[in-house]
């Protein structure tokens, strides 16, 4: 024990020297946001933020950085990626009860990235394969037939382009792909953790307990990469590399109490900060103003306007070991009421129709606000569904007269070639329900194109509803449910029988036809 501490301190010392040297070049922050919702669930958001200054980018020889992992640097350099967002998610984010978080993501894997290069498609292919290897995920299945190019929904978070670059030939291009049925588990977590400076040895990452992380109601690991302008004219651009992990845990389910602490929800305590992190802090948010006590009592507590209490614990290297942040409640009752001021918009996507031949896709968009909300609806549907654009209907519950639909962008699918992409600008009337519905035919695919569990079916990735935000803040996105389409299955044991039977029929036809055309009737003569 003692010698490990010794080793640790020496390592820390080394790292500190390094860090001090690199301070202006590359910086690293850690932040843990713990939020308890009204229904007692606790959302833990981990942010690991690295900033690489332009000078460091220039200085880096064959992608050797101080804090940025080499693999990431290679991705940036070799694939011409300007901005990259990759999330591994399991479970569905309950927008109604948990509000809107930038870390909410659709189930499975979602990848979208801005390129600033020629021949984007080949670069995109390379990128997916590289990430597949990096994160032990089947990202390489995002091929051309699963790649979309949204026009409106995915704006750049960072400042990708200056005005001058837009005029250039290789203006940045966007690619979007998702794998709804990718099962996210520890084999994805481990390589993701390896990218952290002090992996799970120190800092808030030491709270990672796979047993609890993967027992939550929602779990999402994000890897985000974006350029940041350092000067007004945006001539100099640094790189911001953020790793996020969001997990929703349920103290009620774990030990049937509303009180929680790091110990109870992670079965871990915080030992120390990560030495290379410039500042580390834990922020606890409670949707109440009274009736609870923070343990330990935080250095500063403040109320925001919306009835939340926010406590901040800065973590320094001299913070006590085994730090355990938590909350005890005076009244242990939880209430499941939905606060419409925070979750003022809701989407409910579902399949209509039945049978293996055709069906429909419907989305109900509820606007609970007394003001109209402009949103952008984006949907990328694989080619196995043949959408009929002329059946696209948009209906609202209130005053039909108002023009709900703005622009519509539709790209029909090509069999085995590309998905069909539907993107619409909508203005949801106040206190209304807007229903988008479109019909489709199910494709009958070859028996080799079915997944191994053919009788489960194909997953249709979540639709994205982005609220067009005011200037400055990035626009919030709402992800609908993923859907399951069960395509009609052939009998997988039949190929030989089918070939045999059909060819028999063909042969019969050909043979009798041949007889008919070549032979002729003659009297039967009997030679004696």
């Amino acid at each position: 024990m003692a010698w490990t501490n010794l080793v640790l301190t020496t390592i820390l010392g080394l790292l500190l020297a390094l860090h001090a040297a690199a301070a202006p070049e590359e910086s690293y922050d850690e932040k843990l946001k713990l939020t308890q919702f009204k229904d007692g669930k606790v959302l833990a958001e981990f942010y690991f933020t690295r900033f690489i200054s332009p000078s460091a980018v220039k200085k880096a020889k064959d992608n050797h950085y101080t804090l940025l992992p080499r693999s990431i640097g290679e991705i940036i350099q070799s694939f011409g990626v300007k901005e990259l967002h990759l999330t591994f998610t399991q479970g569905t984010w309950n927008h109604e009860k948990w509000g809107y978080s930038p870390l909410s993501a659709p189930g499975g894997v979602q990848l979208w990235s801005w390129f600033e290069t020629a021949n984007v498609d080949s670069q995109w292919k390379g990128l997916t394969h590289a990430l597949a290897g990096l994160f032990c995920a089947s990202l390489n299945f995002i091929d051309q037939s699963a790649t979309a190019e949204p026009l409106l929904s995915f704006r750049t978070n960072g400042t990708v382009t200056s005005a001058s670059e837009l005029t250039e030939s290789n203006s940045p291009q966007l690619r979007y792909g998702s794998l709804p049925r990718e099962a996210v588990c520890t084999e994805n977590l481990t390589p993701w953790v390896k990218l952290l400076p002090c992996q799970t040895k120190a800092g808030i990452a030491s709270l990672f307990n796979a047993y609890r992380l993967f027992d939550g109601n929602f779990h999402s690991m994000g890897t985000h990469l974006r350029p940041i302008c350092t000067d007004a004219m945006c001539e100099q651009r640094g790189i911001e590399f953020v790793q996020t992990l969001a997990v929703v845990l349920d103290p009620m389910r774990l030990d049937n109490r509303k009180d929680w602490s790091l110990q109870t929800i992670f079965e871990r305590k915080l030992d120390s900060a990560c030495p290379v992190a410039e500042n580390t802090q834990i922020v606890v948010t409670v949707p109440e103003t009274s009736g609870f006590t923070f343990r330990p009592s935080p250095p500063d507590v403040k109320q925001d306007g919306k009835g939340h209490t926010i406590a901040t614990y800065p973590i320094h290297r001299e913070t006590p070991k085994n730090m355990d942040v938590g909350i005890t409640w005076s009244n242990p009752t939880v209430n499941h009421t939905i606060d419409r001021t925070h979750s003022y918009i809701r989407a409910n996507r579902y399949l209509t129709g039945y049978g293996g031949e055709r069906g429909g896709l419907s989305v109900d968009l509820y606007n609970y606000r007394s003001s109209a909300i402009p949103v952008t609806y984006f949907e990328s549907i694989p080619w196995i569904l043949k959408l009929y654009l002329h059946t696209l209907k948009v209906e609202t519950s209130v005053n039909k007269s108002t023009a709900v639909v703005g622009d519509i962008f539709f790209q029909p699918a090509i069999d085995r070639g590309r998905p069909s992409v539907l993107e619409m600008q909508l203005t949801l009337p106040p206190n209304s329900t807007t229903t988008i519905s479109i019909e489709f035919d199910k494709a009958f695919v070859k028996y080799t194109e079915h997944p191994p569990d053919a009788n489960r079916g194909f997953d249709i990735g979540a639709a994205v509803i982005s609220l067009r935000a005011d200037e400055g803040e990035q626009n919030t996105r709402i992800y609908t449910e993923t859907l399951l389409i069960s395509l009609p299955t052939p009998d997988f044991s039949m190929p030989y029988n089918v070939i045999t039977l059909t060819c028999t029929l063909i042969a019969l036809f050909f043979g009798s036809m041949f007889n008919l055309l070549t032979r002729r009737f003659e009297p039967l003569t009997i030679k004696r």
Partner: protein
Amino acid sequence: MSKPSSTSFEKDSPDISNHEDEDPVVRIPVWTGIALRLALFFYTDASSFFKHRVETSTPVTSWKRFQEGLHLFQHGLPPYDGGVYHQAPLLLAVFNFLPPILIPFLFVALDYWIARGLVEIASYKRKTLQEEVWPEPTLKPTLLAPPPLEEESDEEETETPNQETAGLNRDAHTEQIKEAPKGDTLIPPWLVDDPATLLPKKRPKATKKTPSQPQDVTRPVDALLQAEDIGSIYLLNPFSVMTCLAQSTLLFTILAVIHGLRFAIRGNRSLSMLCIAIAAYLSLYPAMMIAPAVLILARNSHVGISKEMRTSLPLFIGYAVALLGLSYLLIGSWQFLESTYGVILFVPDLTPNIGLFWYFFIEMFDQFRTFFLCVFQILVFIFVVPVSMVFKNHPLFVAFLLTAIMAIFKSYPSLGDTALYLTFLSMNRELFKYMRHSFLVFSALFFASVLGPLFYYLWLYAGSGNANFFYAITLVFALAQVILITDTGFAMARREWDRLNPDLRTKRVELIHR
């Protein structure tokens, strides 16, 4: 060139028309068919039902897909840049300005025109039947050996109207009819209550040539077909009713095919080739129908088949190229080629239908895919030349065979094709007597068309059956049709033999087919 034949047509077209006028009863089924279609269109939702049935609307003829293509076209999106619309570009131009309320009427009108064309073709068939020559049994001792071929061939030529003998024959025939006594004692008693013998002009000719002729029970007595019946048969055929209700664009193809033959009968070469070209342009396979059209044209304008071919084939090609050029002007790219004919030939869309392709290529191993595609597609076209060589004296029978082969072996068949060749079959009514498996065939077709939708339901909706159920039914359907084709072919061959070998026929010689 085609003058005399056209005049001859005008000679007998009026008698058809006033034949209609003299008894309006024959028009009743026609109007029943029309009224049935309109009633089903406007008083039931049968139309929306059949629009979704795989039996009636295939990926290349479905009305819903056409609507999608039209929608894209009208909104300035390229209709062929997607996996949905596979139909011919010029159809878009047709429907672009048509008000939707008129569309059902248009499809009913299409069926009506098809029926009219069929009636005209049938009257031609009736004429050829009347001109058919059954040589007398000359009791020469030719029994010892089968009749030498040249004899048989010149028998045929006497029967083809381009020899003056045929002309004489026809005159002889007419004057016989004129001077045929009413209560002819020579009519055998078993013919008395035969409707065929009630009208004197329908009595088998040359009854009074030799006394032994009427007792010739080895020779079939055919009731001449009423041309109007063929139109009624088409209009009342449930398959064609379904196709019309489904608003399948296949109807345009059928119309073009029928009128190709119709104009050929009128001897109008260029119009006929134009119609065939349109049919081929709409759905590729009907290019085969050049063969019967050319045969008919050759018959009418007494020239050799090869000569006729040399004049009409360039016409066909020219028209086809012109149509493709128009389409290019309409769409602005050649993308439509591989999105229409490419789809017909390479079958990327494996939606089930009553044909043989879909399940075969769902289950096919990828490495053999192209090979079997070539085999299947060649099989459709391979029989054009031999069939039209063997049956060159019976162009309408050639038309029947080719349409039937198309209906069975094309990549996206539907019940409309079946309705078309069944109508052609009903024109060759004189063959039914010679057919051996007609009951088997038609009950198999009936069972298949009852069980097909049911098994489809069990597979896709109830989920209690699997794809093999429906596949088995399509197999039975195709098998029954194959048997029908060959059976009809043999019936034709047998009848021809009976007709051309009177001596052996009257001796009831045992035949073998070798």
